[in-house]
């Protein structure tokens, strides 16, 4: 299980390929399903052209929360491995923001765990977006459809 924050652009497909070749080498033959979610920065939000975004985070807590989310998924499904990368800092449109990759024996648990991890990440991991638009900068921080309450489901 690997979680990392990344300040520079990365290729999610190259990362998954390298991770599977290296970290999962000894488990080759065990996994039958890999589910991958890739989140990419769009250049339009709330009707405005967005030229850049800065992702602020809480060093220490963000990594800890991401690790907890992976542990929560691990306790619900039989996961062979999980690899999460999240960008922080300055991000341009079309950059990958987040990668979630899950390796399991069968597809049902790969899809379910991948979905769980990305949804929990979106709603509970401390990240805050500041967008650069034509008229200046703005925080985007109120778009959770259900306000998060700090009871973490395990």
């Amino acid at each position, binding site marked *: 299980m690997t979680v990392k924050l990344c300040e520079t652009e990365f290729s999610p497909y190259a990362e998954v390929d390298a991770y599977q070749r290296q970290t999962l080498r000894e488990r080759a033959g065990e996994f039958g399903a890999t589910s991958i979610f890739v989140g990419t920065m769009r250049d339009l939000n709330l009707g405005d052209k967005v030229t850049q975004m800065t992702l*602020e985070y*809480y060093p220490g*807590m963000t990594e800890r929360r991401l690790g907890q989310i992976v542990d929560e998924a691990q306790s619900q499904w039989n996961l062979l491995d999980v690899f999460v990368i999240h960008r922080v800092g300055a991000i341009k449109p079309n950059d990958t923001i987040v990668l979630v990759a899950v390796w399991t024996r069968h597809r049902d648990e790969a899809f379910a765990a991948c979905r769980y991890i990305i949804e929990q990440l979106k*709603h509970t991991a*401390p990240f*805050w977006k500041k967008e650069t638009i034509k008229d200046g900068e703005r925080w985007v*921080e109120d*778009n959770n459809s259900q306000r998060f309450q*700090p009871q973490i489901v395990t």
Partner: protein
Amino acid sequence: MTIRVRYFASLREKMGRIEDTLVAEDIATVSDVWRVVSTGQPLPEQLLCAVNMEYAKAMDPVKDGDEVAFFPPVTGGME
């Protein structure tokens, strides 16, 4: 007791600082910490808080040496 208080994102900008070091004796809960750093304001309902990097509630206790953080709702994403 001494509490390190940290602020993030738009709250950090509103506060005009990234953190405070609180030295006080009459602090028992997260809510008390907010009252001191905000000079008497009630804790806004939408603000999230953490104690030692774990999500916490307004009435959760704090102790000497704790790190308390306040921040706006996390960014989330469109459904």
